[in-house]
């Protein structure tokens, strides 16, 4: 799937794992799906996982800032994780990482791995 989503009810945490190159063409669908799920869950926190993003141009900056603005309105925060070298270079030069921090996703999800109760996690 081009973008996988997971929602952790306990923390109102929504994670998007993007599995394709991000450019002006692909970003339209990413944006549409992300907006749909954000509206549906009203999360407190959204993390974009770039682990399998092999290419990103400036379209990715606009996409992430757009979601950040939206999350701001509903009082949620936006973060990015698993940045590949090329992706980090783009984000770093645009200054985006100052407002949308890069976090350690594995660490963030540690607590969920320890619980047996998987009912709280929704795969989208």
């Amino acid at each position, binding site marked *: 799937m081009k973008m996988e989503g997971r929602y952790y009810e306990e923390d109102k945490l929504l994670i998007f794992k993007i599995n394709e190159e991000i450019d*002006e*063409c692909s970003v339209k669908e990413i944006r549409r799906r992300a907006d749909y799920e954000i509206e549906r869950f009203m999360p407190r926190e959204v993390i974009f996982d770039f682990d399998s993003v092999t290419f990103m141009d400036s379209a990715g900056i606009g996409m992430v800032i757009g979601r950040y603005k939206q999350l701001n309105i509903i009082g949620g925060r936006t973060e990015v994780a698993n940045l590949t070298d090329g992706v980090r270079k783009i984000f770093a030069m645009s200054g985006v990482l100052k407002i949308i921090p890069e976090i350690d996703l594995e660490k963030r999800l540690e607590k969920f791995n320890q619980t047996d109760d998987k009912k709280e996690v929704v795969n989208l």
Partner: protein
Amino acid sequence: MNKFSDNEIKIEFISKSNNEAFARISVAAFVAQLDPTIEEISDIKTAVSEAVTNSIVHGYEDKLGIVTLICKLHNNDVYIEVSDKGKGIENIEMAKQPLYTTKPNLERSGMGFTIMESFMDELSVESILGLGTKVTMRKTIKQTDELEDTQVTLEEALRG
């Protein structure tokens, strides 16, 4: 000295955003013969993607037109020319400013020219209103004696 130096390709394609990936991957595959590093190839792909996106989104504003992409190799230099016959840029200096965009409502970051400028060694923009825009970029591929595994192969360039 690389036996493949002095080479040239020209690609023409219609201004559909699906062709952005085709354009940058073609250039990456062609440039691979200069043995660039993964970072150099990534920089070039990004710059091409920005230039082609500009032609499609701003030059033709989603109308159909032809985007012409020329890539030349000379010694260790890569020259890339992306041109369109679209509406042209009113004020090039302003367009090159970081964060400047004529389409903020569409979530354009206004970083296109800034990325081209910083990822390539040289950038020049020529534009005539109503006639079109031509972006020319140059990047020198550094020749290193580093280990083989820092060099990107054609296969890797095509993959990502």
